[in-house]
């Protein structure tokens, strides 16, 4: 058998000592113990090597003959418990090379599977039926047939080759600042801006200042109640001595990310019920926004308490611990102007100087 003798690779891989030397041993009269010892030990181990690989072992015939799952199932008097007939996802993800792979999260048997959506939120229906055609109409720009838009200069400027050192240099950023804004394409039927997700974030000042986690508990539960989503907690990233926070030590913030169904339910509730009840509320400030289509506004604790979920058992929450929050509406619009158009169509008023 070929595997009996030490293979070519093994010989090459093993240290020089094991390889039979070309030089005749007798030529060198001097011998050391250290010369001999590893070679002898290695040869011992080489004899211990398993000659056959485990891959080539054949299954014994008796095992193959006794394997008859159909007969076993037929011979069974009672059914197995329900779970035995179902695929059960592994509890751990052990990496891509492990033979037991968990199913994808979209599969119902996955541990990460989230069923739904189960309802058609009113805000989403409004968007689909009314808002999106309106936006498409409003953003329509007519160009006569045969019109060609004037060529735009490149966003990243090239270097004039006045110097030989300009060769292979990275391109320069745009004039007037290094920020590359998002590219706004003309709005057609397939890129109508829509609401992508909503983030509710609440920084709880007293959680760090008072060394008392109850602030964070109340904030987390309140945010969960108004958003239908389990919140995440965050520790401070930076040290701010006057606020009494140290990086990595204090859990100071709570965040909930809303997508899809939850997001539209929250938006509808916010616009229809909560915002109109805020006293002397003018709207969202017109200069809000990150100039790439995401708009943030804040609610003070008194406003958060107006949510029907907090109102229904207001006694559960210690009144002074109800958090304020920042609500960020992430849209797929590329500019704040489009985002404001969308959000005002969805019922969020803006006031003041509109900065686009």
């Amino acid at each position, binding site marked *: 058998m070929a*595997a009996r003798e030490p*293979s070519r690779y093994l010989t090459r891989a093993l240290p020089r000592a094991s390889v039979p030397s070309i030089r005749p041993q007798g030529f060198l009269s001097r011998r050391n113990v250290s010369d001999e010892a590893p070679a002898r*030990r290695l040869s011992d181990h080489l004899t211990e090597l*398993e000659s056959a690989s485990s891959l080539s072992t054949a299954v014994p015939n008796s095992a193959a003959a006794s394997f008859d799952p159909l007969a076993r199932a037929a011979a069974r008097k009672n059914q197995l418990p329900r779970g035995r007939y179902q695929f059960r996802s592994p509890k751990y993800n052990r990496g891509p090379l492990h033979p037991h792979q968990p199913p994808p999260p979209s599969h119902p048997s996955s541990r990460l599977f989230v069923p739904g959506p189960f309802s058609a939120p009113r805000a989403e229906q409004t968007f689909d039926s009314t808002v999106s055609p309106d936006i498409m109409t409003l953003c329509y720009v007519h160009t006569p047939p045969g019109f060609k838009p004037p060529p735009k200069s490149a966003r990243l400027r090239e270097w004039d080759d006045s110097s030989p050192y300009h060769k292979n240099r990275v391109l320069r950023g745009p004039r007037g600042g290094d920020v590359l804004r998002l590219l706004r394409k003309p709005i057609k039927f397939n890129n109508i801006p829509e609401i992508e997700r909503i983030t509710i974030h609440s920084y709880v000042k007293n959680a760090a200042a008072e060394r008392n*986690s109850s602030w964070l508990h109340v904030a987390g539960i309140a945010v969960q*109640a108004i958003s239908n989503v389990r919140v995440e*907690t965050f520790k401070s990233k930076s040290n701010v001595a006057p606020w009494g926070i140290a990086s990595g030590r204090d859990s100071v913030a709570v965040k909930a990310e809303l997508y899809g169904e939850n997001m539209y*339910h929250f938006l509808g509730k916010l616009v*229809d019920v909560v915002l109109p009840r805020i006293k002397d*509320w003018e709207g969202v400030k017109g200069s809000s926004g990150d100039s790439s289509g995401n708009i943030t506004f804040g609610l003070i604790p008194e406003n958060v308490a107006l949510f029907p979920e907090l109102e229904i058992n207001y006694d559960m929450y210690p009144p002074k611990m109800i958090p304020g929050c920042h609500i960020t509406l992430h849209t797929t619009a590329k500019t704040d102007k489009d985002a404001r158009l969308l959000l005002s169509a969805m019922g969020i008023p803006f006031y003041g100087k509109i900065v686009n």
Partner: protein
Amino acid sequence: MEPAYITRDNFSAIASTSQTSATSPIALRPRQPPPTRTLPFIIFIGIAEPTTSNMSMHTSLRRTAATITNSTTTILPTRLPTQTSGTTFVCSQCRHATLLRRPKRPYTFTQLITLSDGSTFTHRTTSPAPIYRSTRDTRNSLLWNPSSSKLMNVEEDEAGRLAAFRARFGRSFDASAPVDEEAAKDPVAAKQAEAEAKAQAKADQEEEDNLLDLISAFGQNEAPPPPEKKTPKFTKK
């Protein structure tokens, strides 16, 4: 030719030889056993105060921190039962296996929201109340209905009493209304204007009545038509 298989038995031999000689290729150098295997139990306790981490929320930071076993590893076999509480993350054998946590979702109810104008819609909410009646919403707030005169804060002053009061006792800010000033300057003229307005209204009313009479009396003033002779249009032949 087959490659050399490394079995459990020859593994240590090859490992030892490869460590002794400098010329051994990297390919056969054995993977170093993870250092954490030397400790029987490695318990990572969150840095945060325990009350915070008792909160059953997703704490992504803590989970990532649990894989780092450098500074705060302690051997605490007595704390093993706290594994279920979520306070501590027990890593008895650290392999690179990530727990697939089932996502936690709060229970939601379907709630019917009745707006102030009677329109309703349902939504999913954590509030267990089946119906929510709102008194103040987009239907009756001025910010969403800027042109609604009903919602605007306009004082009703049909009798002119408020205006008269203002004319008499008004200070600078409320005496500045132009209509009130006229009334204050010339009460006689105001009365005259009022009388004129009344007369005008009366005239309008009369005219309207006349019109109504005209309409209602349209068919009645004419003489009733003479009775027709009963002559069949189609006679039988």
